[in-house]
């Protein structure tokens, strides 16, 4: 015991300045992230909603009156009656949304990065123009898209003049989903493009020279020099892309508001349960949040392991 106290004291005197320096962040994150997370987990075990949570009316304080219900929220979300409409349909759509958006943004970003990574007149100008979707705040560009996609808006006018069908982008479920994916891709490409361009430029040109000397075709060079060279950048941006797209709130919320149940991914759906309806269902909303977080953590774990395994077998 004494030895432990001694060690603590020693560690304190040795490290106290480090602890002082990290203390502000630890406190802020503790108050605003760790405590809410703990409280969120607790809420998921209750039937809390805006009617039975303690609140203050005038001078009277009404105490909490919600009950502990164990894991019933989770079982209700995952297997309860109507769970397909409430959870699984959104789950499937969230997965589709993430996979499609990430594939499209990374694919388009890589294509544009490859085009920009060569001697080219006006390269800087192209780059400046291509990052515009990232430079302008999302909520501004999404409103612009909303104007263009509205019934009788520009997109449908253009489609009409080409005698193509004019779906009502903001109302028909399938068209909504397409519109959401397109807008998100539009917003996400610049980041992918710039990061991958950075990766491309750091591949030493000697490798290409060597490959050319060995008679590798353009495709072989791409396959065996460019792609392996991009590995560390691309694995990072894919992970970031998945996390961001999975948690993408602003685009769907701003493009469709709260009146489009089919197009809500899990994040926006959870927000709707917690803030977009009366009574506000805090317990269910928090449960969705925890489920989301678990999915992401599990995915990240698998992704890292998959990367590690590939690293060992690659060479």
């Amino acid at each position, binding site marked *: 015991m004494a030895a432990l106290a001694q060690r603590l004291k020693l560690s304190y005197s040795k*490290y106290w300045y480090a602890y002082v320096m990290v203390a502000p962040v630890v406190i802020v994150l503790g108050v605003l992230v760790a405590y809410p997370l703990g409280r969120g987990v607790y809420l998921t075990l209750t039937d809390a909603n805006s009617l039975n949570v303690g609140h203050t009316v005038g001078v009277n304080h009404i105490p909490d009156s919600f009950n502990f219900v164990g894991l019933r929220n989770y079982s209700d979300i995952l297997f309860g009656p109507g769970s397909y409409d409430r959870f699984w349909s959104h789950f499937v759509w969230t997965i589709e949304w993430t996979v499609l958006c990430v594939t499209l943004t990374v694919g388009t970003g890589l294509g544009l990065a490859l*085009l920009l990574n060569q001697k080219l007149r006006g390269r800087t100008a192209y780059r400046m123009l291509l990052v515009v979707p990232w430079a302008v*705040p999302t909520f501004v560009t999404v409103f*612009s898209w909303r104007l*263009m996609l509205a019934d009788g808006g520009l997109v449908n006018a253009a489609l009409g003049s080409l005698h193509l069908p004019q779906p009502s982008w903001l109302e028909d479920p399938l068209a909504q989903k397409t519109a959401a994916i397109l807008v998100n891709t539009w917003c996400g490409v610049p980041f992918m493009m710039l990061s991958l361009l950075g990766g491309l430029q750091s591949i030493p040109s000697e*490798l290409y020279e060597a490959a050319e000397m060995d008679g590798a075709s353009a495709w072989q060079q791409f396959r065996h020099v460019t792609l392996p060279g991009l*590995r560390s950048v691309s694995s990072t*941006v894919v992970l970031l892309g998945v*996390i961001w797209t999975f948690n993408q709130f602003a685009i769907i919320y701003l493009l469709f508001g709260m009146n489009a149940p089919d197009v809500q991914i899990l994040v926006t759906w959870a927000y709707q349960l917690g803030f977009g309806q009366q009574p506000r269902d805090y317990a269910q*909303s928090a449960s969705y949040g925890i489920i989301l977080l678990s999915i992401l953590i599990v995915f990240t774990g698998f992704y890292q392991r998959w990367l590690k395994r590939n690293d060992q077998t690659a060479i």
Partner: protein
Amino acid sequence: MTSTTDLATAAPAARPEPARTAGTTRVRRRGERSRTASVLTHGVLVLAAFVAVFPVLWLAYIALGPDETDYLKPGGILHKASFANFSEVLNHTDFLTWFGNSLLVAGGTCVLGVMIAASTGYAVSRMRFPGLRPLMWSLLVTQMFPIAVLIVPMYYILASLNLLDSYGGLILVYAGTVVPYCAWLLKGYFDTIPVEIDEAGRVDGLSPFGTFWRLILPLARPGLAVAAFYTFLTCWAEVPFASTFMLSSDKYTLAVGLTTFVSQHDSQWNLMAATAVLIAIPASAFFYLVQRHLVAGLTAGAAKS
């Protein structure tokens, strides 16, 4: 362009291919393209640039049309284009209040967030202490939190601290969301400053805080600037927290205020477009100042995990 990765070691040597029999008719120099390839490249890039820029230009164009429904008949705007919407927004709406709020909140978060992120970044960059790894790990995990899991409990914490509908509360929340990333970014930056500088400072009798405050912070000014810009842009464009925690319309930030044009004043798309343009100008100007560094920083944090 700066890159944060060391790829030279990662790329395996190109596979040896059997030497092709020399029989090609025309030899092209390295990096030289045929005419068709060049035309195609420019074609694709022009198209992509057009798609990227068009929605923004379109919004600016719509903002010139004085009537609510002008976006449905864009051809008519050409004949009656005016800046009436802009003066309407500036003079007869809460735009300037919202602008001030956004500026205040974003600026406040910059100062608070970057300061505490810098001290943490320095500590994790230079000092080895028990709890270092868990701290780094939790900074990373925090970045993948969906807002839905935090927003309800945060609402209650802010309510019980009497910080709902106040600038301080929103600044704190934003600081919580940007600090993990900024700390990683700044750690990366501090790592590039030679440790010898710290040692020289210590030898000359500075305390650990003194070295940080007087030597390292001034040297890290570019890194601090990038962190501040990132913070500013994030706060400037943030919607869900602001719309949940700011309740009275004189406390709205721009992102929240913009949505009120459509819901309350029965869809004043023209005013909304003008507001959007006014919001976009400072943000994009800011963005172009720092975009190079932003990418390097954004990927750095995750690459080192």
